[in-house]
């Protein structure tokens, strides 16, 4: 729980581990660099591998507030950056009837009448924050441009007010599911971190951390089976969060040993498409026969 930058990637990994996020060496290294270079991190990877979790864990590690901008199609300036508080401005004008316009104009375009949206909020915050721009691939290409000024210079330009520069550098994490390609301009300003599915050892560790009472044998079996299922060509391979759900299911059902019939019966927890479930069930039933 420190505000000072951590001295090295090992310490970053240790701190993240301490708050329940198990990073691999690469994640720790990139996060460490991002802090050192004051650069945003663009985290890309399939759904449910812990991209958003990483930002949350970072906020906890540093004891910072998490400011989150959830992206969606149609997100605009007023929702992402700032908006003028029209009602308050109007009230102010009515209250000040009789004054000269030149005086009024200065009055109503001040920070008092500004509604800070996540990006501005992160920049104006007196204590440093963690800014999470979630699922940035959902906004249109044009809207991405809104982010550029914030990401490169940590500043926001408001025509009526001037440029607001960050007093403290926020730690910025952007996540993307790669449903479309992001613009070069955005990528250039970020460090790039691809989080894929974890290997068996790390997944087992994650399962043991996230599902406290899980026996090690079961965690091991679950992690190995999930790896095997992911190697099949599926529409939606099981994510880490789904394998955690599955381990919970096994635990709740009181299963001590996973064999193929248990696996087939509980597949619907791991897989969300009927076609996938059928394919995996078929695979598990036909292969693995002696010889």
């Amino acid at each position: 729980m420190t505000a000072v930058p951590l001295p090295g990637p090992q310490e970053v990994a240790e701190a993240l581990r301490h708050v329940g996020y198990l990073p691999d060496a690469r994640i720790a290294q990139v996060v460490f660099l991002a802090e050192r270079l004051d650069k945003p991190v663009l985290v890309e990877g399939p759904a449910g591998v812990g991209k958003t979790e990483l930002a949350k864990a970072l906020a906890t590690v540093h004891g910072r507030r998490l400011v989150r901008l959830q992206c969606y199609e149609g997100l605009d300036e007023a929702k992402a950056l700032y908006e003028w508080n029209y009602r308050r401005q109007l009230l102010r004008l009515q209250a000040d009837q009789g004054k000269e316009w030149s005086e009024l104009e200065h009055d109503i375009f001040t920070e008092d009448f500004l509604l800070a949206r996540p990006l501005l909020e992160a920049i104006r915050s007196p204590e440093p924050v963690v800014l999470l721009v979630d699922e940035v691939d959902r906004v249109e290409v044009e809207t991405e441009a809104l982010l550029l000024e914030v990401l490169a210079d940590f500043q926001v330009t408001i025509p009526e007010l001037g440029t607001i520069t960050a007093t403290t550098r926020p730690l910025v994490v952007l996540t993307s599911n790669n449903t479309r390609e992001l613009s070069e301009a955005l990528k250039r300003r970020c460090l790039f971190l691809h989080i894929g599915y974890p290997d068996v050892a790390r997944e087992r560790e994650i399962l043991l951390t996230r599902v406290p009472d899980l026996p090690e044998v079961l965690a091991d079996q679950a992690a190995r089976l999930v790896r095997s299922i992911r190697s099949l060509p599926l529409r939606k391979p099981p994510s880490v969060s789904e394998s955690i759900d599955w381990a919970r299911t096994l635990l709740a059902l009181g299963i001590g040993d996973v064999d193929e019939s248990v696996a087939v019966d509980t597949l619907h927890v791991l897989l969300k498409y009927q076609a996938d479930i059928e394919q995996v069930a078929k695979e598990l039933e036909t292969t693995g026969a002696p010889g």
Partner: protein
Amino acid sequence: MLAVLTGFIDELRQAGIPVSMVEALDAAAALRHVDLADREALRAALGATLVKNVRHFAAFEVAFEVYFGLRPRTADDPEAAARAAAADSALVGVAAAGGGAGGEFDDDVLSAALYRALRDQDDALLQAVVRRAVEQLAGMEPGRPVGGTYYLYRVLRRLDAEAMAARLLAETEAERELGRLERRLLREEIELRIERFREALRTEIRRRLVADRGPEAVARTLRRPLIEDADLVHATRAELAEIEQVLHPLARKLGTRVAQRRRHGRAGRLDVRRTIRRSLSSGGVPVDPQFRKPRPSKPELFVLADVSGSVATFARFTMQLVYAISHQFSRVRSFAFIDAIDEVTGYFGPGVDFTSALDRIGSEAAVVWLDGHSDYGNAFGQFAERYLPDVSPRSTVIVTGDARSNYHDPNRGAFAEIATAARTVFWLNPEASRYWDTGDSVMGSYAPLCDGVHEVRNLRQLAAFVEQAALPTHRAMRRPA
């Protein structure tokens, strides 16, 4: 270090990865915070700053191995040196158990050591075996101009890894009872371990090649085309899987871009009624002319795909991409042919698996008439006969195929009829243009009738074409002659 870094960045650019100046500066800045002796840290730092696309990581890894990974690291790292020594002594231990002497090991000793390394997942021992195996079995000679694959093959021929996998599985089975699931998992895991052994061999061979020839030369021979540039027809299975992954985001990007360009395309006609109404507020002077919203024509699309063996994968990617942006067309109809043609429109659509759709074409659609060899003439003839009335001056026809008609009559007349009825006809040929009109290719006889014949051999070209075809055209409709 700076010289190495610039050389490395140069290599990335040569391999087709776009690295901007800013990114190069970032990489240099990142290096100041990284322990340069720590290879993984270096890899993470350079990867995060220089490569911004998952697809480019494979190329990055290869270049990284050549430039950084392969520099001898035991020299300045006592810990690694100690580990290597320990592993070597383990190897000597295996050799002693097998009755061999130190120094030279024969194949049996290496096999035994490899087996133990695979069984116990002992990475240090595996590395030691790999070092020895390459040293003794690859027979590498300095300055000999052969690629790494040749040496890899020589080593693998002597150490039969496949047989070892079978033995490993059998032995585990003898120790304890295995369920079916357990056996399956174990088999896959052993395969993975063997794959890791092969990878280690490859790395070791590369390391020696670099020591012999220098990083620039080795990197040049290892350069593979990026997946956007991979040949669609001759892609390996791994490449196909990769293309598959790339296709979806690419299609979405294309979709947004096309929609955007359409919106900004042109202003509509003057709207007289609204302009007059507006002018009332300015005393009847039309200061603010109003325009109609442009309504770009949405072409109707006919895709005629040759689905015979040689070009089937290509047809599939074309269809996939076309369907991904099908909202830009008023209607998309697809037809498949080999030597007969049949409509397969209903087979594709949102949420349909393309592989199974292609299987359905094979089993349900009547695409084979005589012998199952492409016959473009007959296919066009049937199309003209059955579907010509549907082809209107609003239609764009796209034909995909290599125009290799197996010496059948090209039936130019039928194709001319189709071309006259449609607004535009495009032909996508997955063959390099220098092979057109050689052998049984009849590209030349159809080409004059098309509005465009494109060589489309990789995803990049395919995306460029689809974008162009989806845009509204300004040319006048063609009138039937």
